[in-house]
Structures are given as C-alpha cells and as structure tokens.
C-alpha cells in the first residue's frame, strides 16, 4: 500500500501549482504568484474566520511560493494559530511553516513557545515529537531558555516512548550547540550514558550523537561511555546480522550506529583497562578483516555502508596512534583503496592517508604509495580527488622524497585548475624551503614557480625567496646568475622582474665579472622591462638603479640620465617622481663614502615564522580553530602535521632551523632605516620586506613600523592584527604563533557578554605555569567589568584549554582590554599580550522600526554633536550581501525600504550599558563608481557616535 495516496490532499493547492507550472515566462509566474499572495492576504485579513482546512491550504501555498524564491512577509500569525489546533494535520503544517520560515529572532517566538509548551506537556507522543522537532529546527536562544531544563527529564523518564526519546536526545544536542550555557548538566548525564544500552537502536544512535558532543566538552563526565560504547560496538560487529532487527542495511549491521560509536570513541585516548582495550582492538581487527571478505552484495550501497564503518575505524586507529600493527594494516587497506575503481573510495583513502602520514608508526608505510599518489595527480578526472592527492603529497613529503614531490607538483601546476593553483604554489614554496639541502635547488624551484604560475605567486612567496637569498651568503652569486638568465626571456612575469630587480640590485656585482653580464648589460636588461611594469615594480626598479650606482660607478652617468628624463622626473605618479628626484640628487651630491653607507647591502632579515606558512593556514581556514563540533581537525591540519614530522627529524640540519634567530646585530644606523627615515621619504619595497605582516601602506606609516620593529622586540607588543576582524563577528582565531593558537567564541546579551577563550598548544611539549589574565586601563576599568575564571596552570602538548570571561558593560567605552598570557615553554618564559575584541557595538540589540519612526528619530537626533559622518574609500570589493552581513554582524537591525535609494543601507539598534541605553541610527551610502562610502551615525551621545563610526568605517 502506498503510504501517501495521491488522490486526496488539497485541490486548491494542486490547481495553483499547476497554474505556476503552466506559466510560459518568468513574468507570468511572478504575476500569478502576486495574484495568489493578494488573495491569501485578503483571506487572512477578511472578516470571515477561516476554518482549519483553509488555513492549512493557504499556509501550504505560501510554503510553495517561498520555495520558488519569493519573500513571504505574512502568514506567520496564521501558522502560529495552527499550532493550537487539535487536528494533527493542521498542527503539523503550522510547525512546518515555522521551521522553514521563522527565524530565530522573530518576535513571534513567545507565542510559538506557548504552543510548544502545550504540546510538550500533552503526553501525546506525536504532538511531543512535533514540538521537539520545532525546537531543534529553530534552535533559538529564547527556546533554549524556555525548554532546556525540561527536555533532559523527557529524555530520561522511564515512560517516554522510544521515538520521543530519539527526538529529545537530538533536540538537547541542538540546544547544546546553540546555547551551551543554558543546558544544565546534572544527574541526568549519568542516565543519558546508559541509553547506549537501550533496546531500540534508533535511541542508541541519537544518544551516541548527543554523548559525542557532550563528551567533547567535558570528557571526564562521560568517561563511563567508553566501556558501554565498546560493548555495544562489539555486539554489532561480531553478532550475526539477524539480531539487529531492521537496522541491517544491505547486509551491513547497523552501519550508522557503528560510525557514531567509533566517532564517540575518538573523543578519548585508548581505554586504560586492559580487557576493554583488547576488546576494542578485537572489534577494530574484525572490521579490518571484514573489508577483505568477498562482498555479500554487488550493490554499491553494500560497499558504501561497509566502508563507512571501515573508514571510521581507521580514523579511530589513527586517533589512538598507539597500535603499530593496526596502523600498518590500516595503511595497507587504504593503499588498496587508492587503486579502487570507486572514485569515492580513492578520495577518502587519499584523505585518510593524510592523517596517517603524521603518525611516526605509519609515515614510512604511507611513503611507499608515493607512485600511486603521483599517478592519481596525473590521471584523476575529478579535481576534488586531485586536490586530495596534492594534500597527501604535501603530507608525506620529507627530506628523502622532497625533490621528487616538488618536481611532480611543479609539473602538475602547469595544468592545474585555477582554483587551486595558489594553494599549490604555497605548498611548493614551503616544501622547497623546508627540505632544501642546497639553496640552488630552492632558488631554481621558486623561479620555476614564478615562471609557470606567476599570477598565483603571492607576495609572501617572493618576499621569502629574497629573505633567504639575503640571509645565505653562499647562494647569492647563484641567485644573481639565475635571475639574470631568467630575465633574458622576452616575456617574463612581473614577479620575476621584482625578484630580479631586487637581487641584481643587491648582488649584481657577483656576476659583473663576466662580460656577458657586465653592469651595463644588467642595467639594460632590467630597464628593458621597466616600461611594461606596474608602479610598485617600477619603484622597486628605481631603487635597484640607485643601488647600481653604488655597486658600479661606471654606469652612474647612464643611470643618472635615465633618472633625469622627463618620464621619470615628471612622472604623473608621485611616488615614482619623488624617488627619481631624490635618487638623482643623492647620486649627485653624496660622496662615495656616504653613498656606500646609505646604499649598503641589506642586513640579514630577522627570522620569524615563514609568512607563507601562515598564508597557507589562512587559506586552509582555521585549521585548529577550537570547534567543538569538529572532532577531526587533525584530519585537515596538514600543516601542523608537517611540523611534527619536522620535529622527528631534528638531527638533520634544516634550512628553517638554520634561519631561525640569526641575532646578528643590526647597525644602529643601518641603511634601510636611513633610507626611509627622512632622506628618501619612502622607499617602500625595501621597507615592505621588513614588514611582511603589514599591509602595503603609505610611506609615513611604514617609517613607524620600521622603527618599532628595530627597537622593540615584537613579542612584547600587544597583538592587535586580528582585532578589527572581530568587529562584525564573534568567533574565530584572534592570535597565532608557532607555539600557541588562541580562538574565541563570544556571545552577548544586552549589557552582558561571555567569551570562551580557547588556548591551543601547538607543540608537543606541555606549557607550564600557564596564566591568563585581563588587563584594562584605569578609565576602562570603570566602564567595563571583566571577570576571568582561573585556568589550569599546565597545558599538555597538542591540548586545548578553555577560559571563560564574563563581561559587563557599565557605560560606553573606547579602549579595549588586553589579555595577558604567560607560560613556560621548554624553560623559557613566554609573554603574549592580545587585544581582546570587546567593542562597544557588541552590546547592541537590534531594533526594527518603520520608515516613519526612523525618520522621526533621525530628526530628533539632529544636534550637530550627535551626528558623526565619515567618507572613506572601499578597502574591499563592494558587495551588497557582504555589506548586509557586516552590518548585521555589527549588531544593528537592517531596515529595508526606509531609504529612498535602495542601494543605501539603514540600520538601527540600542546599545545596552548598565547605566543607560543609547539608541543608534546609522546609514551607509555606497558609491560604486568612486568606490567610496559615506557613513553617518546618529546617537544621543557624541562619544558613542564617534566610537561606532570608527569601528564600522574600518570594515568596508
């Protein structure tokens, strides 16, 4: 019997859908929809009370219209009314409408909550399920507040039906994700763990999901789940499939539950109890054995289900990283999959192997598959699979195979998809640097990169090659020769000209002995590219020329002539003109000695973490972002992995280690400082190189950067580079260096806030005497109360520590508090200070208002001091959706249809402080042609307007 009979249902709905489908054009469709919307609207507004059936029909129509991509701005009330119907079908439609269309901050939530409350207490399992579904689907804070304490008791009550238990478990899980602070832990936790023993496998599956999430947060509380999970898994894996009711899927016993249990076990280290441990090992072996058995069905579903369990078992083996035999078996199994005819399995095998490569037990075993992986890179039809192959090559790379892998990646680069080229370039650059035995190979590799994929070579990459050449005496001559040869090509990429200009300007003298590369030849070669280059490159070349004057007095007059030509001295670009004039004057008036001092060879660069590595991490997203939902961050953290490989190879000399703190004192009157400090005004390609982390900016600000860089050690500065990224968002990574990553999750409500700070130890050594406290300036202390909970003084290697900060906003403020972190790492005291992104706008509550209200208030705030306006240039592409998201993220409500010009953005909100509330209206007017914005803020307080304006204008 068909479960859904097609005959019954709503005739009016079917007719309407048929009408839409018969529309010949988009216009006709829109017209028909508008007609229907008008009809429904009048029905809803009409005097005659609608019966449940009609309401249901109209709500269904609205759902359909919504699916077609039209906004629905009414009908919510009718849907809410359906919740209180006694008829199941009407209630169901009401809930459906709400879970599809109502967002979490709707003002109807209170009414909806009322309906839910009635259904939850109805003792009718069907109604209870509908209510629980609705809570889980909407998942708003108001709902969490109303029901979070009630659901655990439904879940563990003895008389609750199985299906309701299932829903209750997942509902609780959802609330725990959206509002963890509102879900109380308590005596129910122990009873939840025992649901793993439940008769009903659906309940066990739901409970396993819930426990996995809870165990990630408080592993200690759920430790008892290990033995239960192992026991359950063992029963599934070893039993004949007949015992498992209907949960056998294409001859595989309860695959989803097995996957969930294996995931749950990945929250923990291997069980300490020997018997339990051997029982788990037995399970894992059985799963591996089953993979070798002939398939019980030819259907792809059978192998999918079987392999889903297998891959999860392998993930657990890798996570435990303690049983060498299992690890090697896992590796062999994946090796077989690498050549499987199913693309999905090849994809997953490549991905799993990436994590396997990081284990010292299996790294060598993974390396044996190098040829297969290289072959995959060349022959796979699917770019997603090729990308995984690149990842795996990167992960398995070490000193022994670096040359081969880099060569293969380079040759793949030529045909690679554009979308992943930049990533490959970064990876090649990192590997080439990390495993370079001789630097000539490194220089060749990077120049090849530029030649093959110049557009995808980011600044970080070419900065880095120059840093390395400058810091290594023995490679300078070779580098000069190689770039000179590379520049001979009639068409070369601008990045090559930059590297060439820089290197010849510094080390051209090393190859000047050969008549084929005499000073004049070098100069002519560089200058032949000059006119094809962009302004920054030309500026760099001018600096190279003045360096030539110092290196080769014999070309002085030639270069002076070039500098003197109208195209330089009267160049329309101020930067170029200034350089030409200043360099020309310098070459004329300075004595040889002064010239030699000013234009001395660049001193070695102070070493820091390769900015390329940082860039790759950024690209890859927050690799070890404290994401409690993400149990497999290790799986994606390829970068971290290679560092740990590096750790195991400590004995062999590495370029990185070599380059680390060189500590060569820089002369106090060192040439770059002089160059930029006054005499030259702005020699920015040079100073840029010193300030790899700063965005390209005007000469004046660079000057400050250079000075601060050379006079105060960077580690004691307050880090605020990520500060402004948090203005419009609450979560992310605020700070990261080689040792420590700090991630934040924050939530605010009226004048209160809470920040979860996650400290991730990126090393394999523990941090001792760890402390973290909040420092505020004196004035800030009276404006903002911050209470930091104490933290554990040790952080294990690879572990994460959480700290909770509770915040209360007393009155409006401008400064930001600083998080001061101290710990000992390998005996050395580390001190890190990070500016905490607690800004005034975090205490916004959005307020919706109508057009006329908005204008009335706008006029009321007409005193000149209340308005702050700024006009500024767009720093990012002007995208409406991005801007929308940013304004919403800033905390105000976006008001549609208020501004007569639809391109403008209008928002309103209220800043909540303990002492007062400050209403705020804002308006942002983009000018796409000029790429400018005008931002206007009106609030009742001058200081608030100013601060908000400063914060927001920085975001676009």
């Amino acid at each position, binding site marked *: 019997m068909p479960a859904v009979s097609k005959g019954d249902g709503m005739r009016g709905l079917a007719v309407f859908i048929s009408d839409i489908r018969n529309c010949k054009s988009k216009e006709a469709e829109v017209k028909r929809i508008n007609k229907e919307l008008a009809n429904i609207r009048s029905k809803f507004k009409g005097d005659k009370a609608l019966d449940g059936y009609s309401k249901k029909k109209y709500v269904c129509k609205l759902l359909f219209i919504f699916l077609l991509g039209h906004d629905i701005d009414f009908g919510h009330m009718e849907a809410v009314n359906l919740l209180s119907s006694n008829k199941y079908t009407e209630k169901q439609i009401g809930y459906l409408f709400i879970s*599809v269309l109502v967002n979490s901050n709707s003002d109807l939530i209170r009414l909806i909550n009322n309906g839910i409350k009635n259904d939850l207490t109805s003792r009718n399992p069907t109604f209870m399920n509908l209510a629980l579904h609705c809570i889980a689907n909407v998942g708003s804070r108001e709902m969490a507040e109303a029901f979070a304490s009630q659901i655990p008791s439904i879940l563990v009550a003895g008389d609750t039906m199985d299906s309701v238990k299932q829903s209750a478990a997942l509902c609780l899980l959802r609330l725990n994700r959206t509002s963890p602070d509102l879900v109380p832990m308590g005596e129910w936790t122990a009873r939840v763990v025992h649901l793993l023993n439940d008769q009903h496998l*659906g309940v066990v599956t739901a409970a396993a999901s819930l426990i996995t999430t809870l165990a990630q947060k408080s592993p200690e509380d759920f430790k008892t789940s290990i033995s239960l999970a192992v026991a359950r898994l063992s029963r599934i894996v070893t039993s004949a499939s007949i015992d498992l009711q209907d949960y056998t899927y294409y001859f595989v016993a309860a695959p989803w539950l097995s996957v969930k249990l294996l995931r749950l076990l990945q929250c923990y280290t291997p069980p300490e109890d020997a018997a339990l441990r051997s029982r788990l090992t037995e399970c894992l072996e059985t799963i591996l054995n089953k993979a070798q058995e002939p398939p019980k069905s030819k259907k792809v579903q059978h192998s999918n289900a079987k392999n889903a369990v297998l891959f999860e078992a392998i993930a657990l083996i890798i996570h435990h990283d303690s049983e060498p035999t299992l690890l090697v078996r896992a590796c062999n199994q994946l090796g077989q999959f690498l050549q499987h005819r199913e693309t999905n399995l090849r994809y997953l095998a490549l991905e799993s192997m990436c994590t396997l490569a990081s284990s010292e037990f299996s790294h060598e075993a993974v390396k044996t598959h190098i040829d297969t992986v290289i072959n995959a890179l060349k022959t796979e039809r699917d770019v997603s699979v090729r990308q995984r192959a690149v990842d795996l090559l990167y992960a398995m790379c070490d000193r022994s195979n670096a040359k081969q892998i880099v060569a293969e990646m380079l040759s793949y680069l030529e045909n690679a998809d554009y979308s992943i080229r930049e990533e490959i370039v970064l990876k090649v650059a990192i590997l080439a640097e990390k495993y370079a035995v001789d630097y000539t190979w490194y220089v060749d590799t990077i120049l090849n990169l530029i030649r093959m994929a110049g557009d995808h070579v980011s600044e970080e990459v070419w900065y880095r090659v120059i840093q390395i050449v400058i810091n290594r005496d023995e490679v300078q001559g070779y580098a000069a020769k190689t770039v000179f040869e590379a520049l001979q090509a009639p068409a070369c990429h601008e990045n090559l000209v930059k590297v060439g200009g820089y290197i010849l300007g510094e080390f051209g003298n090393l190859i000047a002995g050969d008549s084929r590369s005499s000073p004049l030849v070098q100069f002519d070669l560089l200058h032949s590219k000059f006119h094809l280059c962009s302004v920054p490159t030309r500026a760099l070349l001018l600096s190279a020329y003045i360096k030539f004057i110092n290196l080769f007095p014999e070309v002085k007059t030639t270069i002076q002539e070039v500098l003197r030509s109208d195209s330089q001295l009267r160049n329309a670009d101020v930067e170029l003109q200034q350089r030409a004039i200043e360099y020309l004057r310098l070459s004329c008036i300075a004595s040889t000695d002064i010239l030699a001092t000013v234009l001395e060879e660049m001193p070695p660069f102070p070493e820091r973490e390769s900015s390329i590595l940082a860039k790759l991490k950024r690209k890859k997203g927050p690799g070890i972002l404290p994401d409690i939902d993400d149990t497999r961050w290790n799986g994606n953290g390829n970068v971290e992995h290679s560092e740990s490989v590096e750790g195991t190879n400590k004995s062999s000399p590495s370029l990185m280690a070599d380059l680390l703190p060189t500590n060569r004192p820089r002369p106090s009157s060192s040439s770059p400082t002089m160059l930029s400090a006054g005499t030259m005004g702005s020699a920015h390609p040079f100073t840029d190189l010193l300030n790899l982390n700063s965005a390209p900016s005007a000469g004046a600000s660079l000057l400050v950067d250079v000075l601060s860089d050379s006079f105060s050690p960077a580690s004691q500065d307050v880090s605020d580079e990520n500060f402004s990224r948090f203005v419009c968002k609450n979560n992310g990574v605020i700070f990261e260096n080689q040792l420590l990553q700090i991630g934040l999750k924050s939530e605010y409500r009226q004048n209160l806030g809470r920040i979860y700070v996650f400290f991730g130890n990126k090393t394999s050594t523990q941090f001792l005497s760890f402390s973290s406290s909040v420092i505020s300036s004196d004035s800030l202390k009276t404006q903002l109360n911050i209470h930091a909970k104490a933290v554990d003084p040790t952080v294990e290697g690879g572990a994460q520590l959480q700290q909770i900060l509770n915040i209360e906003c007393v009155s409006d403020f401008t400064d930001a508090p600083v998080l001061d972190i101290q710990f000992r790492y390998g005996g050395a005291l580390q001190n890190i200070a990070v500016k905490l992104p607690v800004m005034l706008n975090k205490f916004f509550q959005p307020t919706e208002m109508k057009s006329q209200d908005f204008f009335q208030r706008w006029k009321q705030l007409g005193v000149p001091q209340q308005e702050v306006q700024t006009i500024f240039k767009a720093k990012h592409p002007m995208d409406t959706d991005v801007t929308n998201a940013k304004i919403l993220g800033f905390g105000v409500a976006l008001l549609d249809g208020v501004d007569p010009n639809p391109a403008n953005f209008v928002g309103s909100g209220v800043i909540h402080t303990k002492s007062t509330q400050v209403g705020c209206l804002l308006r942002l007017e983009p000018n796409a042609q000029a790429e400018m914005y005008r931002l206007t803020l009106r609030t009742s307080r001058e200081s608030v307007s100013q601060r908000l304006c400063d914060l927001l204008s920085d975001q676009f």
Partner: protein
Amino acid sequence: MIKAILIFNNHGKPRLSKFYEHYSEDTEQQIIRETFHLVSKRDENVCNFLEGGMLIGGSDYRLIYRHYATLYFVFCVDSSESELGILDLIQVFVETLDKCFENVCELDLIFHVDKVHNILAEMVMGGMVLETNMNEIITQVDSQNKMEKSEQSP
C-alpha cells in the same frame, strides 16, 4: 552536523530546501544557485563529495550529493559526519520517498512539498540524523496518514 539539504532538478529549479542554520531568504536562494552551479558542472561517475561553496562556509563544509534521473539530492555537512554514511542516508531518503509515493518522480515532490518535508523530518532533525531505518520511518509516515484520514472523514 548537516547544515542544509537541497533538492533541485537538472535546470537548477529548487524542489526542496531545508536549512538547519538561519540565512536570509536571499542568501538561501543564492546558496541553492551556487550549489547547483558547483554540482551540475561535474561529470557523472566522478566522486560524490566536494568542498562547499563560499556562501555555505567554504572548505570547512562538504557537499555530498547524488544525481537521480532529473533530480540532484545535495547534503551540506561539516566534518563531523561520515561521507559514506551521508551518501547512504541520501539513498535511504530516496528509497523511502519511492515507497511512499510508489515510483517517486519529480512531480510528486512538486505537488507534495509538505509530505516530503514530513518524511525528511522523520530522518533528519535540527541537522542531526534521527532515524536510518526505513521501516521505522515508513511506519511513522503511515501512522501520520492514518491520522490525516481519520480527521478528514469525521
């Protein structure tokens, strides 16, 4: 967790969209378009997983999809879900639809959006897998239909 479940046809017309995280209507439509664009240009017989589009969260999220005749079934999930597990879940979903509608086709999805939503709700709730056993799901759907029948014939 599952972030979104989308069904659209070979021309990109959405037939079902269910988001388990809140987006504006506009963004939802854009995500559907972006996802269609990503999925539809792929050959048959390539792998069923790919990285999510920028709007839905980029490489932290994965699209797992199957293509049946005229329809694409796409699940957008984070890394806490098993790829093959989700792939099978899509299969269970389709088999269930097939049982409920007797040889399901695109038209069934069009004319019975509410039913499809209800069936899906028996499998996935708030972005988490609720039930994977087809018989159990169908039993639930059947009992709902019985209630519906009894309400229609007073």
